[in-house]
């Protein structure tokens, strides 16, 4: 049992020490939206090859954190050499491209010379993920869960260093969502993931670290480090909900 609850330790922030892995460090700047302060400046550390979830109420700035890291906000371009993949809430498959072409789009854009090699790699990923029968399907011919799998296949082929996920499972029904969670966790186990979610149970299922965002402007209010064994402890669920301000 290695539950490491650190209620008041944030933002002293010494994740490297706690986790014992290298981490990607981000200095999230003070950020205002329409002259209203949204985020306080804080340091964010994402341990490599682990899943970090950000939980918090709607509109608190979870997505903004992802967009800042991705460099999507013009005044806050992040100067980094990391390969980043982004899975937003809405589906990000190109409707005009078949599943295989959707997975290969990154290679096409980067003008990778060895097209056959890339295609072979993509086919291998499709085989590994059990999607080989769907390679020639267009996105609208696929179910929600299948689309998520194709997006994950793309992330795998791109071999991104950091994967930013903005509630990518929120549009799936409950059962498909759990399936998609397990699938993503298995496929992306070697990747560094930053997941934004509203669902505490999803965060528990997937994460090695949970960050709880709160306040106006928002800051990291709390963080939890989880082991596999912790995830099966019922009291942890209560603890997490309590930290989110919900009494079960």
């Amino acid at each position, binding site marked *: 049992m290695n539950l490491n609850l650190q209620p008041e330790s944030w933002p002293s922030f010494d994740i490297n020490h706690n986790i014992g892995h290298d981490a990607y460090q981000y200095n999230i700047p003070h950020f205002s939206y329409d002259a209203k302060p949204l985020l306080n400046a804080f340091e964010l550390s994402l341990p490599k090859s682990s899943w970090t979830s950000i939980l918090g109420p709607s509109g608190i700035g979870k997505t903004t954190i992802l967009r800042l890291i*991705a*460099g*999507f906000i013009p005044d806050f371009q992040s100067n980094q050499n990391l390969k*980043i*993949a*982004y899975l*937003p809430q*809405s589906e*990000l498959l*190109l*409707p*005009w*491209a078949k599943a295989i072409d959707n997975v290969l*789009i*990154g290679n*096409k*854009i*980067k*003008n990778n010379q060895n097209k056959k090699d890339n295609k072979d790699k993509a086919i291998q990923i499709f085989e590994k993920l059990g999607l080989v029968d769907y390679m020639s399907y*267009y*996105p*609208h*011919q696929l179910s929600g869960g299948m689309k998520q799998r194709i997006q994950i296949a793309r992330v795998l082929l*791109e071999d991104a260093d950091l994967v930013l996920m903005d509630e990518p499972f929120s549009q799936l029904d409950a059962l498909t969502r759990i399936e998609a969670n397990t699938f993503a966790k298995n496929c992306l186990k070697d990747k560094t993931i930053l997941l934004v979610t509203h669902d505490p149970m999803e965060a528990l299922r997937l994460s090695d670290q949970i960050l709880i965002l709160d306040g106006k402007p928002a800051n990291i209010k709390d963080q939890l480090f989880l082991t596999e064994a912790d995830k099966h402890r019922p009291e942890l669920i209560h603890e997490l909900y309590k930290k989110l301000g919900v009494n079960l």
Partner: protein
Amino acid sequence: MIIRLIITSLFLILCWWLFVFAFDLPTYILPSPELVFIRLINSIPLLLDHCYITLSEIIIGFISGTSLGILTACLMLYFPFFRLMIHPLLLITQTIPVFVIAPLIILWCGYGMISKIIMITLLLYFKIASTFYDGLCRTPFQFLEMAQLMRANRFKTLLYIQFPSALPQLFSGLKLGAVFAPIAALVGEWIGASRGIGFLILDAYTRVDMPLLFAALFVHILMSVAFYHLVLLSTQKFTPWIQEKS
């Protein structure tokens, strides 16, 4: 669909025949369907000769109008100054029917094919440029952000993301163009030409050769429908995700 079209056409021909028969109309007012059919069969070489001219005008005008429209839309997307200069012109030209300036084009470019090709080009150019530009601008921002993360340059973003994303709008413009291009060719040939289906119709009218007029009209309809379906097939070929969805 073809069966429905045949049934409807047969019904209309029957009504036409009954109308001529019931009112005993003279040929110079309304010829009977069988007279038109006989004239059609006897004039196949003549009709094909004129049809070839009109169809060439339509195809060349269609290709040049589409190419120029696509090029203009791309330039508008990437050069704000060019967009600022040309956008008002596009809006204004949308309100002026190309037929209004047809006499001028014929005056400047002569009675040959060139003047009709220019008319069709102009008709399509403004439509394609504005619809395609609209499509390029409507590319979902998530796709653009994805391209940004993949470190795509402007050309790659245009080629792999914006261009295919705007294809549905482009093909909507093309379908509209496919309807109007044959009309533009016909009007151009009416205003001034020495060959073409429009010229043949006008010539048959002045010589009161009504069966030939109807035969030429029939060929024109057939050609226009075939051309429209060719564009429709291309739409289905190049935007299968839209067709299957609908």
